[in-house]
Structures are given as structure tokens and as C-alpha cells.
């Protein structure tokens, strides 16, 4: 059943309406039925979650007899952004994921954010699906703030995602949807996968399996589920960040999600005007190339790659950089 979560009138003949699809067991959900929220479309340029939302709703409708709780699917928290190919909230240019928990008496974006929180609060679990940004391609992963890692790990392990990245807390991230929900006791996992403006079907399928596995773990899904993959947990490893030191065009020479060797060429930064190579990019460590630059135009400082490694081979200063985190 399609339900309205929040709305506000726009200037000329239209309203901004945030909608969700509530999927319930055939005979209706009982009074104390558990609820899972699957949320995406906070950033208008991230579309991987669109496939997941569609695929999940389709699969649930086809096997509704196996559902014993409520699944609320929110495919577009920022519908105007998705519509206008814009990451933030059009008009105000605010990043929706930096204004939670919002405020009932604040401006439109903050008001909508507060209504979203009200609607999702109390769920047994919430999964907020992101797709990096247009610049970087990410291996499917769960991201968890270290402050809530203990409580969320049992859920994260069931998500069929190859990596769980437990990251340092940063004050700026206190205004995300996940932080707002976790701090009122609604367990919320963040998924980052793929790349902005594209859909990677395999990742979507993998996550849908993970969502059924989560529902099964919570006791609201009785259909047999496929075995899920055990994740690598980042706390056992180190992350090397590789940023560009020159501006130019990044030509990639490595395979995303592959194991790279220390010293291996990952790519180079070219200057098409002069025909020169500005910078050769070599891997500082041996490890898993889990983040890779997708958008070729780079500036001094642009992130090119992140590599998960054991820390024994040196290289990379390992400093976590959460300002650029694309949550």
C-alpha cells in the first residue's frame, strides 16, 4: 500500500510528497508485528538503491505468504533531487543527510527530515542504501559508526555484503539519518555500494538477498534463504587512502575489487593538452582495492582509491578521512 510520509506544497501547482510502500502479510500485520524500513534516494545522484527497492517490493509481493511482519520501502527521500539529477535538495542546495533529525518548525527540508524520522522510529531495523557518488565506485559494504558498532554487528553480518567498515565517529556525521535513528534506539545500517548515476545489478541482487537474510534473522521471513557471505570487518585491517597530487585526467589501469600488489600501477594522471603524464599512481600496499575513482577529471586532493590491507606492508598513512565520506 502506498502511503504518504510527508509533504509540502511547492510554489507552482505541485506538492513535494515523500512516499513509502508498506508491504504487510496477507491477513494484515498483528499489533506487535516487527517492522523493517528499507530507505534510499537521500542523495539524488545515487541510484543503486532504486533497483533494490523495486526488486525487493517485487519479490515480497510474489512470496507474500512468507512475510510475517511489515516492510516499509522508501525509494526516494529526496524525490526532487532524483528527478533533477541533483545530489542535494534542489532550491536550498542542502545535503539532506546533514540535517537530521530535522525540526518540525524549521525550514522545509528540516521539517521533512523530522517527519521521516517520526515515520521510521521504532522499526526493528532500518537499512539506508547509498551509492557513493559520481566520482567513486565502492565495493558493497556496510558502514557503521564505532560508537554503535557492538549493537549493530549482529545485523550487519547478515547483510550479505563483503565488507563491514567500522569507522571513527565524526561530529559532522551526527546529522545523518543513520545517526539520528540509532540515537533514538532504531538500529540503522548504512549500505554504500556501486557508483552514482548508475545501477549495478549484481550488487543490487546481492543486497536483496541480504535484506531477506536480515528479515529471516528478525523472524519476519519464513522462506528459505540462500547462505550469505561472511563479511571482512575493517577493524581487523587498515585502510590506505590514495589521493591525487596533480590535477588532470585519471586513466585507470587497475580492476576494482581486485587484490593489488605493493608498487603495482593503478593508473596515471594525464594532461591531454601537452601529452604528458603528470603523475603515476602506484599502490603503496598489497591489499583489496575496494574504492576506485570512476570519474576521470581529478584535482589536487581528489580521492583515487582506497585499499584494505593488513598493515604489515607499510605505505599509506592510514589516517581515516571522514570529511570526504560519501554517506
Amino acid at each position, binding site marked *: 500500500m502506498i502511503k504518504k510520509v510527508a509533504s509540502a*506544497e*511547492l*510554489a507552482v501547482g505541485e506538492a513535494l510528497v515523500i512516499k513509502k510502500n508498506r508491504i504487510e502479510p496477507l491477513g494484515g500485520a498483528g499489533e506487535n508485528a516487527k517492522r523493517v524500513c528499507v530507505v534510499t534516494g537521500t542523495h539524488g545522484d545515487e541510484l543503486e538503491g532504486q533497483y533494490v527497492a523495486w526488486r525487493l517490493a517485487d519479490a515480497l509481493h510474489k512470496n507474500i505468504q512468507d512475510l510475517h511482519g511489515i516492510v516499509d520501502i522508501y525509494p526516494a527521500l529526496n524525490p526532487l533531487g532524483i528527478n533533477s539529477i541533483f545530489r542535494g535538495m534542489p532550491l536550498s542546495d542542502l545535503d539532506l543527510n546533514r540535517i537530521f533529525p530535522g525540526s518540525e518548525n524549521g525550514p522545509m527540508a528540516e521539517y521533512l527530515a523530522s517527519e521521516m524520522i517520526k515515520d521510521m522510529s521504532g522499526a526493528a531495523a532500518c537499512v539506508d542504501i547509498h551509492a557513493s557518488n559520481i566520482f567513486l565506485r565502492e565495493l558493497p559494504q556496510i558502514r557503521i559508526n564505532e560508537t554503535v558498532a557492538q549493537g549493530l554487528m549482529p545485523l550487519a553480518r547478515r547483510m550479505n555484503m563483503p565488507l563491514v567498515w567500522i569507522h571513527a565517529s565524526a*561530529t559532522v556525521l551526527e546529522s545523518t539519518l543513520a545517526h539520528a535513528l540509532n540515537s533514538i534506539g532504531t538500529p540503522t545500517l548504512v549500505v554504500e555500494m556501486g557508483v552514482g548515476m548508475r545501477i549495478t545489478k549484481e550488487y543490487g541482487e546481492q543486497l536483496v538477498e541480504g535484506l531477506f537474510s536480515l528479515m529471516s534473522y528478525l523472524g519476519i521471513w519464513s522462506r528459505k534463504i540462500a547462505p550469505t557471505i561472511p563479511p571482512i570487518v575493517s577493524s581487523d585491517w587498515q585502510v590506505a587512502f590514495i589521493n591525487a597530487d596533480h590535477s588532470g585526467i585519471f586513466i585507470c589501469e587497475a580492476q576494482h575489487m581486485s587484490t593489488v600488489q605493493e608498487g603495482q600501477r593503478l593508473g596515471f594522471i594525464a594532461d591531454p593538452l601537452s601529452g604528458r603524464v603528470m603523475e603515476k599512481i602506484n599502490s603503496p600496499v598489497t591489499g583489496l582495492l575496494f574504492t576506485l575513482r570512476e570519474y576521470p577529471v581529478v584535482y589536487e586532493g*581528489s580521492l583515487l582509491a582506497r585499499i584494505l590491507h593488513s598493515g604489515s606492508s607499510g605505505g599509506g598513512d592510514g589516517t581515516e*578521512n571522514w*570529511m570526504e565520506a560519501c554517506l
Partner: protein
Amino acid sequence: MKKETLFAINTIYRQPIPVHGLIFGSGEKSLAIVGSLRGNEVQQLYICSQIVKLLSRYEADGLIAPGKQIMVIPCVNAFSMNVGKRFWAADNTDINRMFPGYSKGETTQRIAASLFEHLKGHVFGIQLSSFYIPGNFVPHVRILDTGFHDLDLCDFFGLPYVMVSKPMPVDTGTLNYNWQVFDTKAFSIYSKETKNVHIDSAIQAIEATFQFMQSQGIIRSASPTEEGSYYPFHPVRFKEEDLVNVLSQRGGIFLHRSQVGDEVKTGALLAETLDPYGGNVIERMVAPCDGRIFFNHNSNLIGGHEVSCRIIPDNRASIA
């Protein structure tokens, strides 16, 4: 005046984009003034350009106090300004959310880090700022309540209003917040406009800056009769959380019926929204309390649940 290139930003296909610091006097790093960090802050750029022009005259006349140095950085974001973007034009990030910066991080973190290297260690810092919601303000001094802030110093600007804001999580990346954390007494000056030059409020901001410099002994008065005459002015102080937001319910064509700075009584008409297809009034926004208009939404279109106006209520807790 010494013109220094503090650092330059290299990009493909564009000239290196320099960030200049204009330096007056010598000695103690007394004051840094920062203009546009965002590409739409044209008023802020204008104000800085006029401050530079005036300070050059002060310097020529020997009116910069001995042992005091002032640095003005009119523009950090020519990269975005020259292509008509508000935030960093390559990835839409906001430099004013990246402080204190990170020299090994992303582009805007590196810019913030390079800039902050030059800004750290000043006794005073003034940022000419704009608000994250576009609109018009009563010119005022804003200070973040960090525990390190010095409210009484705000009075020396001589602006009519001083607003004290509790930092939100996103504020921890602003220049003002980090200046304070690193022991600089930091103030933000908000002018009426942002993307257009508004001469009257620019003059107010320029005068406020000079009044502050003179009150703190960084410059001497251009007029000998005024020497030593800068006593603190008594502005209206209030906390941001005490502002009363007047929210719209309806979307449509938005017309102000009052101006920022107006004193209003409860029930006074503030603005009207017209049906975009029929032209008749569909909503009248009235003052919910007695007070003064601090902020006005500045577009002629409005949606439902937008802040059309913010009022400093007469009835509010006083702050010391």
C-alpha cells in the same frame, strides 16, 4: 600593503587560481579578515575590496598601529565564482564545512588546511559570511557559543544586533568555530545581501570592521578628534534559538509586505502568497509576536513550510 600569494589551486585547463593575502602593517598577527569562501558571496568580496582600499590609505597616512599586522583575504573561491557556482564547482562541497582542513585529504579539505595555516595564530578573526538559507538579514555580528567566545567584544563593532548561536554538528567544520578552538577571537559579520552588492549595508560592515580595529588599538582614527572615543555600543543581543520563525503553509508567488529591520506588532502583515494561477491572496503571514524582523526569505516564489521571516521577539530571555 604587501600582496602575498598564500597558495594557488591548480586545475586542468584553467589558470592556477591564486588565493591572495593583502597585508598591512607589521608585527603581531593582530587581525585576519576573510571574504568569500563561497562563489556567490559577491557582497562579501565587495566589502573586502573596499576594506583593502581604505586600509591602504590608513597605511599611507601612518594610521596602522605600530607592531600590528592585518591580513585581508578577499576571495578564496574564485574557482566557483568565475563559473557561477555557490559551492566548490568540481564536487559541490563547501569550503566552510572543511575546517581546520586536512592537507592529505580531498581538494576542499586541502584548501581549508592551506588557508587555515595562514589564519591560525591571529588575535582576532573576522569572517564576512552568508547564511546557508538564502535570504536578507539585518546586518549583525554572529558569534558561536563555543565556551571560548567573548560576547562583550562584539559590542565594539557598533552593529545594531549581536546573535549568539549554539553550534550544530555541521558548524564544527566552519572557519569561525575552528578559529575559536585555536584561540583566535572570531566573529562573523552578516550583511544584508549575498549575491548582489548592497552599498548601504556594505558601508555598515566596513565601518563596523574599522570601528572594531580602532577599539582594539590596531589602527588609529583617521580623524584626530575621534581619538579614543570608541566606547562599546550597546547592541541588541539575542540567542539564535529565541528567534521566532514565521513559516509559510502554502506555495505560490511570494510578496513581502515588510522589510528586514522593521519593528512589528503582533498581527502586523509580513508577507502574502498569491495563487500562481489565479492571482488572489491564498495566505497572509502575520507577526506572531511583537519584535523586529531579522531575516526575510528573498525569492518571489515560496513553498509550503518555508521560513518566510524570522523575528527577534521583544519578549525574550536576556543574555549577559
